[in-house]
């Protein structure tokens, strides 16, 4: 049996879903669209049923891509997801608006269960509901009340699902209740008026407001006055951002170092214990570092989504959207763009996906286009290496650490670029509809930790699967390109290096590093690096950096490891001290140092702008459904990165 879970947003629908299915859920997409489809297994009397969580909607008639799914499924009995039973979750404290969607679904004639959720909130608001009278309006529906927050009502809902019956001659809530066609606006409007007219006549018989609660301000409204205050509102939001970033940048480094070390050990252990050969190399130099490069970002992403889920759960996020909307609009963005942009600081992949909540096509497109400009965590290793290399460690104006200041400037540059590009795109992209913001401000609630946990788990899973596949694939390709070269070029290089090592009496480790460097130089990727040298020379880069730029297309942080290999330095993973010393000694043909302030800044600027991430590109392609936009973004960022790096190098050198 297929069971559809439907309801307005903010009714606790996802809590009901979690209550019924626990962790036995699967997140995918509805066929053909990028709308999240959560399905879960439901066991009733030893038989398994499929519960499908539909996007929260106010009506069966769609106003966004998400909502179209609901209409497409419910209007077409041949649809593979067409349900046998509809479970509609209603916010009991907000019956008027919730009954609208319910009455629409009831009138479809399917077996229907009404879950009156958040009974506790209704109680607190001194609302009492006459369920008998409600039942008499919808005689064929099974009505249950629940409080999914405290896990109340599971057995009752399961029972209701089995007792809900199909009714051939259902007396519909309104007359002529057949579903209107999707673009028959006039009939939909007429239907809305008719339904609310009927709801308004039955509400007095169902809902009674106890005491004179109505005149006093609710706690939510009081809190809103502070949280949306012109000064305190922004201050509080800024403080929360600061706290989140503090967690992401400082505390995440503990598990990240641990993961880094473990993958390093694993590689070494396998390299030692397996017979030498191509498979050993592929595993220890391609696959394991590739997986490690994905897993290392899990702590930051988990922390970010832990906080975002709390902000969402408590209802605070709607207030952030509310106070940010006016500020974002001149840039062609929406208040809801705040979440994607914030996510982008950890990783652009979940950020781009978070743009789904923006109903307006143009605002959503612009958000997706600029989110990868936010400096993500994969840029941090690149930034820190280069800063340590070319920026002196000194204090200016008494207490500002110059290195810290430069890092901050790189982040600011990303934000400014994102907003600037957005403002430009506002004029370039043609609007399909007029942008709008219609957002419910839910009452403030305690976060449900179960939901927070599930959100974090799902987001991490999405990241690992999306980014993982691509980063892994590229790591393997790059490993192959770096391990093989045309003809016997590499063998020759190794022989030369060995001779050099013997003559100069290098120890074993030095010799190994030297050989690795020589091999890389003569591999396919080394040749590629040399080929692009003329193009990147005006930016101050040589072919060695060229190789690192190419390899870091898998993920930006690979830049550091690649440099270490090319310069035949043992990658110590931590402070990169040997690498830094080596880089500082590097000289150009004319004897001037390679890694000057100009080159360093040029590289940093390049990494601020460049779309050096295949995984993000893949997600952008999927979310926009268009190669045109994906390559437009790649090209735009490429031009920006090149020009920015060119200008910085030429001005500083």
């Amino acid at each position: 049996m297929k069971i559809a879970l439907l309801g307005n947003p903010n009714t606790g629908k996802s809590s009901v879903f979690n209550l019924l299915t626990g962790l036995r859920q699967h997140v995918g997409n509805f066929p053909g669209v990028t709308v999240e489809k959560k399905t879960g297994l439901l066991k009733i009397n030893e038989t398994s049923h499929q519960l499908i969580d539909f996007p929260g909607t106010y009506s069966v008639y769609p106003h966004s891509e998400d909502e179209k799914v609901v209409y497409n499924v419910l209007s077409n009995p041949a649809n593979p997801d067409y349900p046998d039973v509809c479970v509609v979750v209603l916010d009991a404290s907000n019956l008027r608006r919730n009954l609208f969607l319910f009455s629409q679904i009831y009138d479809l004639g399917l077996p229907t269960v009404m879950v009156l959720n958040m009974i506790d909130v209704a109680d607190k608001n001194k609302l009492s509901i006459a369920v008998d009278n409600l039942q008499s309006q919808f005689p064929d529906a099974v009505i249950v009340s629940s409080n999914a927050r405290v896990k109340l009502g599971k057995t009752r809902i399961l029972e209701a699902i089995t007792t809900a019956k199909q009714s051939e001659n259902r007396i519909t809530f309104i007359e002529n209740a057949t579903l209107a066609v999707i673009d028959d606006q006039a009939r939909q409007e007429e239907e809305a008026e008719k339904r609310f007219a009927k709801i308004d006549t039955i509400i007095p018989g169902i809902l009674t407001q106890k005491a004179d609660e109505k005149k006093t301000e609710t706690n939510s409204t009081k809190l809103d006055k502070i949280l949306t205050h012109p000064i305190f509102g922004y201050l509080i939001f800024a403080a929360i951002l600061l706290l989140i970033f503090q967690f992401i940048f400082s505390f995440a480094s503990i598990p990240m170092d641990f993961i880094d070390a473990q993958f390093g050990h694993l590689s070494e252990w396998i390299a030692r214990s397996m017979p030498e050969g191509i498979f050993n190399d592929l595993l220890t130099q391609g696959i394991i570092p590739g997986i490690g490069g994905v897993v290392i970002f899990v702590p930051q992403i988990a922390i970010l989504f832990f906080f975002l889920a709390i902000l969402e759960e408590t209802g605070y996020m709607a207030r952030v959207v509310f106070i940010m909307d006016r500020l974002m609009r001149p840039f062609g963005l929406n208040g809801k763009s705040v979440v994607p942009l914030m996510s982008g600081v950890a990783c652009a992949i979940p950020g781009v996906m978070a743009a789904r909540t923006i109903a307006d096509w143009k605002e959503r497109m612009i958000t997706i286009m600029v989110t990868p400009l936010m400096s993500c965590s994969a840029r941090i290793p690149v930034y820190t290496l280069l800063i340590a290399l070319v920026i002196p460690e000194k204090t200016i104006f008494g207490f500002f650490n110059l290195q810290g200041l430069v890092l901050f400037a790189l982040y600011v540059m990303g934000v400014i670029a994102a907003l600037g590009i957005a403002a430009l795109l506002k004029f370039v992209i043609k609007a399909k509809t007029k942008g709008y913001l219609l957002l419910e401000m839910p009452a403030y609630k305690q976060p449900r930790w179960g939901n927070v946990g599930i959100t974090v788990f799902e987001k991490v899973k999405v990241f690992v699967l999306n980014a993982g596949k691509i980063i892994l694939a590229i790591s393997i390709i790059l490993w192959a390109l770096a391990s093989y070269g045309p003809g016997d070029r590499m063998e020759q290089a190794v022989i030369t290096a060995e001779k050099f090592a013997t003559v100069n009496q290098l120890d074993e480790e030095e010799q190994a590093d030297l050989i690795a460097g020589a091999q890389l130089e003569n591999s396919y990727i080394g040749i590629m690096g040399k080929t692009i040298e003329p193009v990147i020379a005006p930016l101050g880069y040589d072919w060695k950096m060229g190789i690192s730029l190419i390899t870091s297309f898998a993920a930006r942080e690979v830049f550091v490891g690649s440099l270490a290999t090319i310069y035949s330095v043992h990658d110590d993973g931590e402070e990169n001290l040997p690498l830094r010393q080596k880089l500082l000694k590097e000289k150009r043909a004319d004897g001037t140092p390679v890694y000057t302030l100009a080159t360093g800044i040029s590289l940093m600027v390049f990494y601020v702008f460049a779309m050096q991430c295949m995984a993000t590109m893949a997600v952008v392609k999927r979310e926009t459904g268009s190669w045109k936009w994906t390559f437009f973004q790649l090209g735009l960022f490429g031009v920006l990165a090149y020009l920015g790096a060119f200008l910085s190098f030429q001005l500083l050198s």
Partner: protein
Amino acid sequence: MSGHIKLAQIKKGNDAVVQSIEGDELRSKLLELGLTSGSKVRVLYTAPFGDPIAVDIEGFVLSLRKSEANLIHVTV
């Protein structure tokens, strides 16, 4: 007090009754959110810079931009 004014013109803390909604592409969306004629609304608070605004519609709070509130005709 009679005569239609727009919801966007209602001051913070004041009540109004919805009369009609302009025929915009958003009309059906606004109706489905319960802004049918006769429904009671109250402007609760506004965002900094006076836009968007938060409105109580028969028991739930909706935030909408001024441009959207301009589509909604009300009486005080």
